[in-house]
């Protein structure tokens, strides 16, 4: 799986600058500033890889931040890759209406 992630990151990085975001186990409001910092670390047209390998909990603040990320990436699934997402979180993203904006590679 790690090799696959590397391949994905490499493919994305070949096209544009790629920012890898790796939230903690409880991705919520408390991690908001760090999330914004990582998001703003890339250029305006960079791609993002959201690695949820550690994440077990996503609250609405996290989903709101992901919504911001979608807007930042101009709702372009080619610029948004989500990896290591569990089925539960995948369902949550589905309910939140965020799943279509991410190219997902399930855990």
């Amino acid at each position, binding site marked *: 799986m790690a090799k696959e992630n590397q391949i994905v990151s490499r493919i994305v990085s070949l096209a544009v600058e790629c920012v890898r975001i790796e939230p903690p186990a409880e991705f919520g*409001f408390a991690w908001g500033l760090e999330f914004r910092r990582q998001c703003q670390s890339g250029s305006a047209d960079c791609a993002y890889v959201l690695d949820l390998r550690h994440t077990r909990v996503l*609250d*609405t*603040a996290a989903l*709101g931040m992901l919504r*911001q990320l979608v807007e930042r990436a101009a709702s372009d699934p080619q610029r948004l890759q989500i990896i290591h997402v569990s089925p539960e979180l995948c*369902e949550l993203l589905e309910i939140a209406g965020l799943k279509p904006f991410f190219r997902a590679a399930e855990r």
Partner: protein
Amino acid sequence: MENSRVSHLGHLKWCCLMGGAALIGLASGTALGAVVATGLAFGVGWLAAGGRLLRGSASATVTEPVSVPAAETAPCSSPGSSRFTLPADFPLWSQHFGGQFDTTRASVTRVNVLVQSGVGEIGSSFGAIHRLIQGQQDSLRSVLDNLSEGGAADVSLHTLNQEIARTAQALNGFARLVIEVSKLNMDVYFQVEDMAAELAGIGKFVDGVEWVAKRTTLLALNASIEAANVGAAGRGFQVVANEIRCLAQRSRQISVDIRTSTAAVQSLVQQTQQAARQSASQDLSALLGSKSQLDSVCRQMGVLDARIIARMDEVAEISSAIEARTGATVRSLQFEDISRQMLDHVDADLRALSLTLTRLGEQVDAAGDTPLLQLSEQILAEERSTNPHLPSQSELTAGSIELF
């Protein structure tokens, strides 16, 4: 005498034939067959035996076999070949067999009544069953309509499923609304955070202003000291130094005010950040659980709906099959009418034979040279002409029933 014996022997033989025919008819399983076979054998026997009876004149009962010349016992097959005379006991003989005909006709009538009554009862029962099955089918159809479309009650599994699906959609919409609000709250939080950073910058500026004010005050103090040292010449300079000190104090006071206001704004920023945190950070697990439960209920309702409709379809098919079978049985019972008319026809035939026998005794003397067999056939034809047609239908198959 010998002829008389022969005729009585012939009579006995045909009676045996008649009995055999009746047994064959009974063996074939129908009372109607027995009656018809008996009647036909009786008629044929009468005709054949009658030809011989006309040859003799004695009326004695024969109890033992007697040898008969071939010429005397030859059947009377060619009408008009000879002139016959009736035996003296013909009226008794005719009365006896007339009574037999009447007995047979009474049996036919009883069979007819029994068949008619039994079939009528069966037909009535099947008709009731048919109506009950139709009622059952109507009820099932109503249940199916209610299940699939709701019918008049406007409540069905289908509509319930739709309602649940709508609720799930509303829940999804609510979840997305909550997330959108969270996103706006995060926007506010980040902006307030930026504002807090700017406030921190203002604090540094105020620090600078305070430093300047402190240095200015110190400078004004030094200027006052120098002015005092100069004496009267430095009095003007003393005034300027005092004004500078006042400005420095004013500047320091403004810095304090700015710092106080900034602290107040920072407090408000912190409160706003706290509110944004509380508003943005909600646990969606309850919502997710509710959504999962709704999805599960939706799936179970769908399965239940499919099962019930499948079972109802099976019951409806069974009811349709029963209705079809009942209809076929009721149609089959309509052939009772044919059987009854056949029995009526047999009765009429027997009556015709009985009347022929009677009229034969009355008309034989007036017939002149007409051969007896020809006369009997003529009378029989006249009697039968009143009932010319016998239904030809012999199988209880579906289709058109021959009317007559």
